[in-house]
């Protein structure tokens, strides 16, 4: 216990500093939320690999690193070094750390808010209190608890009923060089899409260099009846970084959620995407691409919970692994007893470019209803010799032939990025991590 206490010392100190600098922000209600979350974190501590959900991903290096949160305004989201800064697409940009330049990304109106979470919390509109911290459950999740304890800033979007946003909202979290060594930050994002509203959300997390730092992000998304969200969550942290992230989605009746998650870079990356299909006819699509080379470790965990009848979920996660990298995929599908006529499909495909790379892929189906269609499948394979030879016989050298085949494999997921300049940037940047 005393060991744990001393390990937590840094977090506790930083927590007190944060409380001092944000007092008033969100009032007593937000302070109470932070305090409760900090209590949970102190109680839980970082999970060990004895914890079933952390069997293949060790947080030991993170625990030992004793990272600190910068004591500056917005320190809990101190960032800046964007590897996803592709030009040529029109957007509402929210850049962290906040530089004031985009203080109001034309997102104020009667029926919408696009801006900083800190600003939203100050104004205390009903949608913040109704949803912030209410979906990403932290009772049994130390990292979410820690993020909630350090809840200070991030992006916030609220769309009133029927509001359709043409331009995507881009929240760019990028590591600041001076904080990128030895720091831990906790960006927090809240998106509330009113009935029948529609938007595209792009979240990018990036950093460069080899410094040790940690991003511990939580995004809460609420889709009311008939709302639609396309969500691209793209991660490419610096070489020594830890990236830990949760996306928690709450879907009401006939809402549509389409997620495309790319995880790459960093020394250790773990992203959890959880969707609760809590309304009839809800539709959920989870697509993912993970790319790891060298000694990188990347862990993707998804949970789709069908709580109501007639909902549909589709899932495709693909991985490309080279070097001595290691990947984990865990795809959970829960169909509650009342969720009859559920239609759920899951697929995980892995391309192994080296004999020393490893993948642990585990589908997890918990089906309590009896009238459902559920399927899942996993493949693990190498590049096809036939395909490689075909390309080489047309004059492409071996390296280029491999590259084209890898791009082809990844394309099944990446082609889902409808913003062309962004897709190109992701494809070229992310796949270069493989070192082929």
């Amino acid at each position: 216990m005393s060991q744990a206490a001393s390990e937590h010392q840094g977090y506790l100190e930083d927590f007190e500093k944060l409380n001092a600098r944000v007092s008033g922000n969100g009032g007593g209600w937000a302070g109470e939320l932070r305090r409760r979350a900090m209590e949970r974190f102190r109680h839980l501590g970082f999970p060990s690999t004895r914890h079933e959900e952390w069997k293949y991903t060790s947080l030991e290096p993170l625990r030992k690193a004793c990272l600190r949160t910068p004591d500056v305004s917005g320190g809990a989201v101190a960032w800046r070094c964007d590897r996803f800064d592709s030009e040529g697409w029109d957007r509402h940009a929210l850049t962290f750390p906040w530089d004031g330049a985009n203080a109001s990304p034309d997102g104020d109106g009667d029926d919408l808010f696009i801006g900083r979470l800190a600003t939203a919390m100050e104004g205390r509109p009903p949608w913040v209190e109704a949803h912030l911290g209410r979906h990403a459950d932290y009772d049994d999740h130390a990292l979410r608890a820690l993020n909630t304890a350090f809840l200070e800033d991030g992006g916030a979007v609220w769309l009133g009923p029927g509001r359709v946003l043409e331009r995507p909202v881009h929240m760019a979290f990028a590591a600041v060089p001076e904080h990128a060594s030895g720091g831990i930050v906790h960006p927090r994002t809240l998106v509330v899409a009113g009935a029948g509203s529609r938007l595209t959300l792009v979240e990018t997390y990036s950093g460069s260099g080899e410094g040790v730092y940690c991003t511990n992000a939580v995004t809460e998304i609420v889709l009311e009846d008939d709302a639609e969200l396309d969500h691209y969550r793209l991660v490419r942290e610096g070489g020594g970084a830890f990236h830990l992230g949760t996306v928690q989605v709450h879907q009401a009746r006939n809402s549509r959620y389409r997620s495309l998650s790319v995880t790459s870079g960093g020394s250790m990356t773990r992203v959890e995407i959880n969707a609760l299909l809590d309304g009839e006819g809800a539709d959920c699509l989870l697509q993912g691409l993970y790319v790891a080379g060298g000694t990188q470790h990347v862990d993707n965990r998804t949970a789709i919970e069908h709580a109501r009848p007639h909902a549909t979920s589709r899932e495709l996660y693909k991985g490309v692994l080279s070097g001595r990298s290691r990947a984990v995929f865990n795809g959970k599908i829960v169909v509650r007893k009342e969720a009859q006529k559920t239609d759920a499909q899951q697929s995980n495909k892995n391309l192994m470019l080296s004999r020393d790379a490893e993948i642990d892929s585990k589908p997890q189906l918990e089906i309590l209803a009896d009238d459902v269609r559920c399927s899942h499948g996993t493949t693990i394979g190498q590049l096809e010799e036939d395909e490689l030879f075909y390309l080489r016989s047309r004059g492409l050298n071996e390296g280029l032939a491999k590259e084209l085949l890898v791009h082809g494999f990844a394309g099944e997921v990446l082609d889902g990025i409808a913003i062309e300049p962004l897709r190109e940037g992701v494809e070229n940047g992310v796949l270069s991590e493989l070192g082929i």
Partner: protein
Amino acid sequence: MLEVRNLHARVEGKEILRGIDLTVAAGEVHAIMGPNGSGKSTLAQVLAGRDTYEVTAGEVRYQGQDLLDMAPELRAVEGVFLGFQYPVEIPGLNSLYFLRAAVNAGRAHRGEEELDAMDFMALAKERMQAVEMGEDLLRRPVNAGFSGGEKKRAEIFQMTMLEPTLAILDETDSGLDIDALKVVAQGINLFRGPERAIILVTHYQRLLNYVVPDVVHVIHNGRLVKSGGKELARELEDTGYSWVEESAGEEPAAAADRSQGA
């Protein structure tokens, strides 16, 4: 242009090519015919550089170079083209993108400037017309979901784009309807020229009616057992290969007199 001497190759411990001798001069069209499993595709693939097949003896010279010593991609940019009996489907790889990379690999090798997307498209459109291939096929991933005939047509289209010096076409005529066969034959004939040579692997006289060969070889059990003029193909159509099988134990006399021995 091409000299194959006493070529032996095996796969998984089984000897498939057992002493192939073949000389092809610039400007010539050679047809190779023979029963299923006699080694036609193996020969074609070995010439293109497929390393599944282990060459155990013999040599191959192409334009004075040691072909067997060259990587498949080097053979390609040096002008060797293999039209696959079973073209490979590559879902996820766009045909246009692939083909431009291939064309530009050849151009880079020859020290020519690379074609940009627009020049490439213009060239592709022109060549597509020659083999009456729909542009929509090119917008799809490489061979993905193509019908058998579409795949063969696409191979010929690739050939006309890559402008090889030696084209080895492995049953490019199989699976084509009559009209497609004519179109493909027309593509091959357009491609024919004094600087170029073609090896046609085929089972049928049909194609040879349109693309008239200079020499016809019969392969059996990994050896060329008989060579002759275009009338040999017609003869085979009538008699089949049974007579070849009877004489298979004998030395390949006709082929031997075209080569200088190992």
